[in-house]
Structures are given as structure tokens and as C-alpha cells.
């Protein structure tokens, strides 16, 4: 009996984790209504399949809003409905941005679909002719080819040969093709050349991040475990009730809205859920408000302040010297000038922390590795480290905050910062 109880807690955890890691589950829930993008997209593609015509559409929206997931859901459903009349070619602007590799990839995927032999040494012209020929054949066989062009804006750089030949082939030969472009740039269609744009239908579907209420109901939906035979009934009901309690708690609402203020896309929400679920206490088997609080603090970090907290006191001295030089409006700052400032501070205040030049140089290099300062010149390395100009990558407010939070900060540093600022 004990084993069984342990088992279902672990099972619940597994279920939740696989739900969160699979974005399609989330988007299916979100886009269930008939007015949603999912239904519109499905209608559009299925009508071009049934009516044997060509079509093109752009899916636009910020990153993580579910464009690809919704498209994959639509394609999956269509493949179920029309098993033999659809083939899918997937390209990504990041990987296949140049036309040569794009055509090669198209040819490779077409060969794989239709069990033809793919030759790696085929030239660009061979591949493009092959594609046109295949489109014609598929058109004659009443088979629709769906081209999924991810990162569409990257295809629109350069000469746009792929886009032109694809859209041109769709218009000239007897083909049945649907071109779906996906992009995070909301002006992706403005990037198209005139001749390409004229062949592109101006259909766009916008994927906007969900509102706060929708996000909340999505969260509840994702965290509700099914009350059926896979889980003991009372455990499932208790679990869902606890989730409902958490969601209605005022503190949770505050944390949640803080989190979504930064980025309200669904993927970001899924990250939050993943962190919270992974901290679920397996002894009790239920989620608690603490899990969500831990998730919030572990995802929202302040990296520069963390770096400052990790620095040694000598490194803080160097940062304060650089800040003082900046305030004095010395336009040009390198290691030697920082050393001069360091020496002048030591002379005027008689600090106990006065170290050799090579020790300071090493601390300086630590700061560069931590990305608290960086070199200001890009022209290569014809000068050694001591002479290259450097600049600070943190603001004086951050430096002040870091100094205050540092647990054994020498008072002299605070005084120096305050005196200038």
C-alpha cells in the first residue's frame, strides 16, 4: 500500500513534467475555441487541400507564443484526416538561410518522403529543377506539399531566391502547395521584394501573448491531474483542490503578475511551471505556494549584483577607481590610469589594502572574465593588457547597491563612492 502511494506521487510528478515540456499540450488548451488561430489555420490549410489550390500565409508573433506548436497540431490533425494527400517540408531560416543549403534540404526531404535516392553532390540548379518537377508531379497526383519556413525573416535577407522560385513555381506549374512562413518580426512581410510580395497572399495570423486571466486558467488546466483510474481518486481531488487554493491566494497573484510583467509569452510561463513542479515535495505529493516562490526567485536573477557579491575586496577597489575616473570625465581609461588612481587613494587615505602591480593586474583580469568591465577597443590585440582602454559594464547605482550589500566592505569604498556621486 505504501509503495502504491509513493508510486502515484511520482507518477503525478512525471505527468506534470511531461505536460510542461511538451508545448503542444499547452497550446491545444489555449487555442480550443472556434475563433482561435488554431481553427483559422486549420480551416485555411484544409480548404486548400480539399480544393486543390495554392495558398500562402504568415504566422507572426513574439517568441514563445506557440506559432510552431499550433502549426504542428494542425498538421497532425490534417495528417490524420487526409493521410496520403499531404507531405510536409520543414526549413529553418537559421540553418538554411542561404539558398544553396535550402534547396539541398528541400530535395533531401522530398527524396525521403517519396523514397527516392538523394545525391549529396547535386548542384544548386539540379536541386531547384528537381523541386519544380516534384511540385508538378505532386500537383498532378493531387498531393499537397506544405512548406514550413521557420524564421521567415532570415529567408528574406539577401536575394530571396528561394522565396521567389517557390512562389513562382506555385503560380506557373500545376502544383498544390501551401507556404507557411513563421516569424517573430511583425513586419516580416515588409521585408519581401516587390516581385516576391506580389506572389504572396497577404494573409497573416497574429499570435499574441495571452492575457493574465487566460494565463491563469492555463496554469490551472496544466496543473490539474485527471480524476480517472490512473490516479487514486481522493489524491487527485485533493491535489486539484490545493492547486485551486494556491491560485486564489493573494500572494500568488502578486508573484504571478510580477513574473508575467517581464514576459507574458506562454513559453516563459511554462519555464516557471517547470521550476515550480520540479521543486514539488515528494513526501507530501502536493504543490505549495513555496514552490512557486522558489521558482520565481530562481528564474529572476540579478547577475551583475551576484558578480559584485562574488568579487574580492581588491576587485572592488579597482571598480571604485574606475568609477571615480569616469566621474572625473577622463575619456580614456586603461589599467595604468586605474593604478595611478589606486595609488592616489592609498596616499591620501592610507588604506591597508595596497598591493603590487601584478597582483592588481590579475584582479583586473578576473573582472574582465566576470564581465564587469570590458575592453573598449575592437581593433585587435596590438597592445598589451595594461594599455588597452577599458570601460565599466555596471552603472553607479548597481555599484552602490553592490557595495552596500557586501558584507565586509571597507568603509573607505563607500565614502569614495558617495563623495563623487
Amino acid at each position, binding site marked *: 500500500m505504501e509503495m502504491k502511494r509513493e508510486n502515484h506521487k511520482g507518477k503525478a510528478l512525471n505527468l506534470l*513534467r*511531461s505536460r510542461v515540456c511538451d508545448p503542444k499540450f499547452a497550446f491545444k488548451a489555449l487555442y480550443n475555441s472556434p475563433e482561435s488561430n488554431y481553427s483559422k489555420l486549420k480551416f485555411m490549410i484544409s480548404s486548400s487541400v480539399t480544393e486543390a489550390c495554392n495558398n500562402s500565409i504568415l504566422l507572426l508573433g513574439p517568441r514563445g507564443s506557440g506559432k510552431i506548436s499550433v502549426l504542428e497540431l494542425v498538421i497532425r490533425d490534417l495528417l490524420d484526416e487526409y493521410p496520403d494527400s499531404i507531405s510536409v517540408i520543414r526549413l*529553418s531560416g537559421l*540553418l538554411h538561410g542561404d539558398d544553396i543549403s535550402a534547396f539541398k*534540404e528541400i530535395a533531401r526531404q522530398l527524396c525521403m518522403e517519396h523514397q527516392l535516392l538523394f545525391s549529396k553532390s547535386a548542384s544548386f540548379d539540379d536541386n531547384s529543377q528537381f523541386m519544380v518537377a516534384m511540385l508538378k508531379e505532386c500537383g498532378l497526383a493531387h498531393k499537397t506539399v506544405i512548406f514550413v519556413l521557420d524564421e521567415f525573416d532570415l529567408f528574406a535577407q539577401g536575394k530571396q531566391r528561394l522565396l521567389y522560385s517557390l512562389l513562382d513555381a506555385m503560380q506557373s506549374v500545376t502544383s498544390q502547395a501551401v507556404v507557411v512562413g513563421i516569424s517573430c518580426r511583425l513586419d516580416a512581410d515588409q521585408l519581401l521584394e516587390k516581385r516576391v510580395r506580389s506572389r504572396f497572399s497577404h494573409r497573416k495570423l497574429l499570435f499574441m501573448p495571452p492575457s493574465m486571466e487566460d494565463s491563469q486558467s492555463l496554469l490551472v488546466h496544466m496543473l490539474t491531474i485527471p480524476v480517472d483510474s490512473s490516479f487514486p481518486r481522493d489524491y487527485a481531488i485533493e491535489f486539484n483542490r490545493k492547486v485551486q487554493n494556491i491560485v486564489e491566494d493573494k500572494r500568488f497573484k502578486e508573484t504571478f503578475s510580477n513574473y508575467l510583467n517581464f514576459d507574458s509569452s506562454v513559453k516563459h510561463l511554462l519555464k516557471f511551471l517547470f521550476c515550480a513542479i520540479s*521543486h514539488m515535495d515528494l513526501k507530501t505529493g502536493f504543490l505549495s505556494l513555496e514552490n512557486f516562490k522558489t521558482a520565481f526567485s530562481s528564474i529572476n536573477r540579478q547577475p551583475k549584483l*551576484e558578480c559584485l557579491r*562574488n568579487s574580492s575586496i581588491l576587485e572592488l577597489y579597482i571598480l571604485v577607481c574606475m568609477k571615480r575616473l569616469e566621474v572625473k570625465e577622463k575619456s580614456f581609461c586603461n589599467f595604468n590610469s586605474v593604478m595611478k588612481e589606486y595609488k592616489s587613494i592609498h596616499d591620501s587615505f592610507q588604506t591597508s589594502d595596497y598591493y603590487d602591480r601584478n597582483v592588481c593586474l*590579475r584582479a583586473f583580469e578576473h573582472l574582465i572574465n566576470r564581465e564587469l568591465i570590458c575592453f573598449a577597443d575592437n581593433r585587435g590585440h596590438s597592445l598589451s593588457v595594461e594599455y588597452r582602454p577599458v570601460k565599466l559594464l555596471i552603472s553607479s547605482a548597481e555599484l552602490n547597491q553592490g557595495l552596500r550589500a557586501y558584507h565586509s566592505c571597507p568603509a573607505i569604498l563607500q565614502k569614495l563612492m558617495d563623495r563623487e556621486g
Partner: protein
Amino acid sequence: MNPEEAAQIPRRTTRSLASSSASTSNNASSAKVNSLEPLTINDLLVGGDPISLDELFSNFPGRSSQILEIVSLLGPLNTPMLPLFVYGGASTGKTSIILQLFRHLNRPLVYSSCRTSYNQRILFESILNQLHLHRKSSANGYSNAKRCERPSDFINFLREALTDAINNLKEKSAKLISGKTMAQGGIGNMIYLVFDNFQLVREWDKSSTLLPFLFNLYDLLKIPEVGLIFISNTSPDTFYSSNMGYVEPIPVYFPDYTDADIRKILSRNQADSKLYSSFLDVALRSFFRVTRQVDELSTAFKPLYEKYCEPLSDKRVFPNGDKDKDMKRKLFSHINPHITSSLNEIFKVSSHPSVEVENSKEANLKVNQRKLERREEIAKLDFHMSTSAKYLLISAFLASRNPATLDASLFDSKGGSHNRKRKRKPSEKVPERKESLEEELLMKGPGSFPLERLLAIFQCIVSVAEDSSDEDKQSGELMSDVLLQLSSLCNAKFIFKGRSCPIEGSVRYRSTVSEDLALKVARSLKFPLSSYLYKRT
């Protein structure tokens, strides 16, 4: 590219290889092949004896919360995960904790470091080699499993390799379940890819496409049985670029160790822990102000601890042996003067001093601090250079330091030291101009000079040396390999070679040695460097 194709590509061979008989090379290669067994999927595990979580906690003091966080994010066996981004300062234990954690969890791991796989192609091929369980041997001509340069090829190969490996794992675990009871729960169905030293990827070529590609790899693959872990020295915000976005992985932060943690770490494996902790009481606080990295502290403490323990064997200081009540105070008073000087040498990797220097140092043990410092200043040059390289280094230093207009007066055909009296008087410069000149020296750094000027100065100096020295064995040899010496000095980064500018003509060089080093080199040659230096003050 399959192995046959690899063997048929004509390879350049050395003469010795071509001249060795074919039979011996065949025997050698077949012997080698027999001794190495083919790799199995179990070789993807970290290996070693299994360790428990408590051992892991005790091996890594101060890291228990990070270990627990990573364990909970990885989840139980066979659960999917979103990509993780582990970051923290240097030597905070990220790589070793991840590897030991996988040893504890006993799950297959594909580890690649972006330091040893220093460009895109090598990274891709190393990952594919591991997934294909491919070992480079003479049988396959030390080639990789697949030739892969572009991300588009990599994603296809990776998908195939991962699906094969995962099916392999599934068969294995199916056999385990159907067979006897599982001993340790099996190794699961998931494969984890670890990218170490990820911060180096930002500086590669094509990093603008590679970084978004790797961060989006989980979404592109759409295989739930893959876990991705990125390890980096810098935080995720240093990876932002204006080119392209990606969904950020989940951050896991490794803060630097606190005071107490460092004490625990350094006290491990010490023979006498009480003695060591009293040593740390004395030394740690001051060293902690300079650096907080464990590796630097441990290197600095080793010689200091030996020094600290010295009086224990000295009968004069401790007549009662270990039972002296004032032990701590006496040891403290012994070590105290050395701490400050050791602090200033903390990052120096010193060469071993010769025995005579050691003896003389012991004799002067009662000398106070200042003399010790001065003694270091006049230390000898502790690496060897040939005479012509030394002269070349000095001439480069002079060429960078002195303005070109002074060459004529400093170096005439005879050497020029007796012309100093007729040199123009040092003008009384206004103090502000002095200061601005000094600042210029600080800011701009050493000047650059063309090759002809360097060779001219070199020739002058060498002719002076030949005149003044009685040995004539040096007469012809110094000039012969000057250009060779110049290129080796450039490789050693004593001289920087600038890019050739089409307007200015020839390549310009710049000397990077400090004045101390130049003085040391000059002293070893008995060359009066200071008389040639242009004094700006």
C-alpha cells in the same frame, strides 16, 4: 564519409613512414585493433564506482543546495526536462559537480567542452562520435564518425544518432525489466548533452548563428528524451545579441564560496587539521581580500603552510615539542612578516630558486622586510635567451621607448656614449608639460617602429659590444639569424607585430616588455641600458 573513402584519400606521409616496411605497420595496427574493444552504450556513463548523495555532499562542501536544485530539475528517471544553464565564477565546481552527479545518478551523458572542441566543426563531430560510440583508431584512419560542418547537417545527423541511441537504451531497459529484478533501476531512456565552457562560443566565428542554434536545439529536435545542460563562467545576460532571440534556458547559479566553505575545502586531505585551521586563522583573512578563487588560494597557501610549520621542527623554538602551550603565538610571530610579501607574490608562478640563493636567504633570515624586497628587484633573469635575442630585445625596447629623432645622436657608428656630453641640455620643461608627457607614456603605451629602425639600432649596439668585448667568437654570429630571432620573439609575445598598413608601407612592430625585464636582460649582458634611455623628465 565511410571508412573506405577515408582510406582512399591520398595522405601525405613522412619519409620515415614511407620507408618502413608494410608488414610491420600492418602488424602494429592489427595488434592495436585487437586490444581495444568496441564501445557500448554503457560507455556513455561517467563510470567509476557508484557514489551516494551523501558522499556527494561531503565531497563538495557548501554546494548542497546547488546539488539538490540540479537533482530536482533533472527529475527522476525517464522524465523530460527543459534546458538548464549552469553558471558561476571560475573554480566554483560546476563541471565536477555535474560529472559526479551523473556518476551518482548513473545516466548516460555526452560531454563536450567548448575549450577542447574549439570550433563549430570539432564540437559537432565530437558529439556525433560519442553518440555513434565511435572510437578513432588506426583502423578507420583516425577519422570521425561523420563529417559535419554546418548546423543544418548537424541537426539531421544528431536526430538520427539520438534516435538510434535512445532505441538502444529502450531495448536495454526492456530487457532488464523482463529479466531479473533491476539492480539499480537501470540507466533510463534519456540522454543528456552537456556543453562545458560555453562562454567561449561567443568568440567563435559564426557565433551569431551558432548561439541561437544551440539554445534552440531542444525545440528544433523535438525529442523529449534529450536533456541539455550548458555550463558557463558568465551569466546568461552576456549572451544576448542583437541578432536573434531564443527562449532562455533555466538558470542555475553557483555562487562563489564563502569564508567557511573555503576553510572546509582547503582543510580536506590535510594531515593535521587542527594545525591547518590555526594557520588559516592567520592567513585566510588577508588573502581573502585579494582573491576568492579556491585554486589561487590553494596554490598560494601551500608554500606558506610549509613555512608556517618550519618552527615545529626547530628545537630552539619548541623545546617541548607539540605540547607547547604558546605554540600558536610562536608560529604566528614566525609567519607574520612573510604574509605581506607572500600576498604580493600570490599570482606569481615562480621558478625554483637555485640552492645558493636559498642558502643565502636563510643566512639573512633576521633581515627586515625592506631588504627582502630590494633583493627581489635585483634578481636574475630566470629564463635563458641567446645573446643575439637579448640584444634584439634591448634594441626593440629602445626603439619603442625613444622617439625616432633621437637615434642619430644616441647611436653613431662608434656607439655614442662619449657623445652624451655634447647632447643638448635637458630643457626646463614646464611641470604641466612634464605631467602630460608622463600621462602620454601611461596611456599610449610603447611606440611602434619599422623593421629597418630596429635593425639599425641592433647593428649599432652589437658593434659596440663587439668593440668592448675581447672575445671574438661573437663577431660574425650575432647578425646571422636576426630575422629568425625576431620571429621567435614575436611568437613569445615580447614584440607585437602590427598589421601592414598599405599607406604607411612596411609592417610596424611594438615592444611589450616592461622596463624591469629590459633592465634584467641588459644587466645579464653588462649593457649600460640606462645611458641610452631617453629621459622625459
